[in-house]
C-alpha cells in the first residue's frame, strides 16, 4: 500500500511546486471485475501533468486508457496509489467528496461529445455551473467561451443540429467553463475526419496553454501527437513514456 499522506496543501496551492497544481498519479493500480475474473486495468502507473501541459496517452483498445482517466477524475477509486488534482486527494472513499472535487477541479471531454440532447450549445455550458451550490457558481461566461471555440453563431443549436466537430468543440467548452485545473479527454477525435481532428487537438493545445490547464488526452490517432507536449504509451495497464 502506498501512503496517502500526500498533499494537504489545498489551502495555499500557490506555494507548491507547479506540478502539484496539475495532475499527479503515483504507483496507481486498479483492478476490474470480481473474485472469479479480474482485469488489471492499471498496473503501477506514475504520471505527472503540469498546468499548461498537453499529455497524450496512446495504446491499443483495452489497455486501460479510459480507466486511467476514470481514476484521475475520481470516477473510480484505485486499489493502490495516490492521485491528486490541484493538490486535492481524488481517492477519498466518500463518493460525495469526490463528486464535489470533480465539479470544482476536473473537466471531462468524452468521445463524440456526449452532449445532452435537450440542451442548446449555450445551455450545455450553463449546466456545469448549476450543478453546485449557488455560492460556487462561478466560472467563465458561456457565450464568450463558445465564441473562443468558434461556436458563437451556433449557441442556440441543439446537438442534433451540430456536426461531429462542432459537438466536440461544445464538449471542450463545457469542460472548460468551470475553469478546472485538469482536463481529461477520452478519444476526442474518434468520430472525426482528419482535418476536423487536427482542429480539435489544436484547440485543446491552445486552451491548455492559454488557461494553464493540465490536459490528459487519450487517443488512437498518432496523427495528432505533434500538438502534444508529452506522449505516453499504455499497454496492459502499464504506462511508459513513448520513444
Amino acid at each position, binding site marked *: 500500500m502506498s501512503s496517502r499522506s500526500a498533499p494537504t496543501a489545498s489551502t495555499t496551492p500557490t506555494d507548491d511546486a507547479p506540478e502539484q497544481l496539475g495532475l499527479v498519479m503515483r504507483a496507481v493500480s486498479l483492478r476490474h471485475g470480481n473474485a472469479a475474473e479480474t482485469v488489471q486495468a492499471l498496473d503501477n502507473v506514475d504520471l505527472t501533468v503540469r498546468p499548461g501541459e498537453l499529455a497524450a496517452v496512446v495504446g491499443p483498445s483495452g489497455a486501460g486508457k479510459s480507466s486511467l482517466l476514470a481514476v484521475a477524475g475520481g470516477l473510480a477509486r484505485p486499489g493502490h496509489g495516490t492521485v491528486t488534482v490541484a493538490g486535492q486527494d481524488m481517492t477519498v472513499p466518500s463518493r460525495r467528496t469526490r*463528486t464535489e472535487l470533480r465539479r470544482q477541479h476536473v473537466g471531462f471531454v468524452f468521445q463524440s461529445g*456526449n452532449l445532452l440532447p435537450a440542451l442548446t450549445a449555450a*445551455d450545455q455550458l450553463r449546466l456545469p455551473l448549476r*450543478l*453546485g451550490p449557488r455560492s460556487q457558481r462561478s466560472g467563465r461566461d458561456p457565450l464568450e467561451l463558445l465564441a473562443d471555440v468558434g461556436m458563437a453563431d451556433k449557441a442556440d443549436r441543439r446537438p442534433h443540429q451540430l456536426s461531429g466537430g462542432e459537438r466536440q468543440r461544445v464538449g471542450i467548452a463545457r469542460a472548460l467553463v468551470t475553469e478546472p485545473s485538469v482536463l481529461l479527454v477520452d478519444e476526442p477525435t474518434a468520430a472525426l475526419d482528419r482535418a476536423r481532428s487536427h482542429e480539435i487537438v489544436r484547440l485543446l493545445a491552445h486552451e491548455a496553454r492559454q488557461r494553464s490547464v493540465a490536459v490528459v488526452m487519450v487517443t488512437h490517432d498518432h496523427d495528432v501527437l505533434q500538438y502534444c507536449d508529452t506522449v505516453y504509451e499504455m499497454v496492459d495497464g502499464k504506462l511508459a513514456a513513448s520513444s
Partner: protein
Amino acid sequence: MFLAIRELNFARLRFALMGAVIALIAVLMVMLSGLSVGLVRDGVSGLQNLPVTSFAFTHDVQRDSAFSRSVVDLSAVDEWASQPGVADAAPFGNTLVNTRTDRGTEIDLALFGVQSDSFLSPAVSQGERLGTADGIVVSPTALDAGLQLGDTVTIDRLGTRLRVVGVTEQQDTFGHVDVAYVPLAAWQAIKSGTAPGAALPQRAATEITAVAVRAAGGKSVDLAAGDTAAGTESLTLKEAYGASPGYTAETTTLQLIQGFLYAISALVAGAFFAVWAIQRKPEVAVLRALGASTGWVLRDALTQALVLLAAAVAIGVGVGLALGALITGSGIPFALSMPSISAAGVGLVVLGLVGAGAAVIRITSVDPATALGGNR
C-alpha cells in the same frame, strides 16, 4: 429544474402523450367524484339535513337495514332525553311508500314520521310547517317529480290520503327517494297498515323506528351508557348513513373504482418514468461525471415528474369540471364538490410521484465511469 424544464420542452410530444393519459385519469376521477357525491346526496341527504347526532335503534339491529327493520318502544325516548349531554331526543319513524296524486302522477316517498312540535320538524321554504294531522312537508325534489303544493296523495293499497302543506329548504332524499315529513301519529297508522277511519291498534301507538338524539353543543354523549339504560343500539349519524338502502354497496363500489384509478395512476407514471430513466442512463452518467450529485439528478427528475403530473392533473380536472357542469342537473345523481375533487387531484399527483420516484431511484445506481468511451 434547469435540465428538467428543458427536457420537458425538448421531448414535448412524448411527455404530452404521457400527460394525456394522466389527464384522462383525472377526468375520470372528477366524474367519479361527482357521481359519488351525487349518489351520497341522493342516498342520505335526508339524514344529513337532520339536526341529529345519533339514532338509537333496536338492540342487535342489522346495521345495513336498521331503518327498515328497527322497532323501538316510545318509552326509550324519555330514557334518552334524560341521558347526560343530550339536548334533545325525539321519536323518529321511517317507511317507504308508493303514492299517486289525484292527477295520476305516481311518486314514491320516504316518510319521516316526526312529532310536529319536536326539534325534528323541518323548516319550510314554501307553505307551512308540520301541524295538521294529514299535512306533509316534502323535499323540493318531489316538486321536480310532479308534485305540487296543495296536492293530495293517496298511499297505494292502504288508501290513506295526505296533503302537501309545505316544502323543505333543500334536497331531502333517502335511498334515492324523496323525503316526506309526516306527523308521527299518521306515520304510525301507515306503518301498522291501519286503514283510514279505523282505530290505531294499541301496540302501534307506542312503536317508533328509532330515537333521534341531539347532543348538546360541544358535549359528547356516552352512547353505550344510553343504550344500556334504554335497551337500544345507537349509530352515530354517519354510521346511520350505512343503514340507508343501497348506500354501503354504492359507496364501496365507487371507492373501489377510485382506489383502482389511484393505483393505475401510480403504475402508469411508474412505467413511463421507468422507461425514461433507463433511456437516460447514458445522460445521467455524463451528468455524474460532470460533477452532479445523485441528489441533484434525483431532484431534477422528480421535479420533472411533478411538473408533468401537476399540469396533466390540472388539465384533466378542468376538462372534468366542464363535463361535470354539463351533466349536473340532467337527472343523473351528480354533484361537483371542490373539496372532494381537490383531494382526488392531490391524490393523483402524490401517487403518480410515488410511482415516478420508485422508477427514477434507479438512476442513482448509474456508474459515472460509463460516460467514458469504454469497452462496454
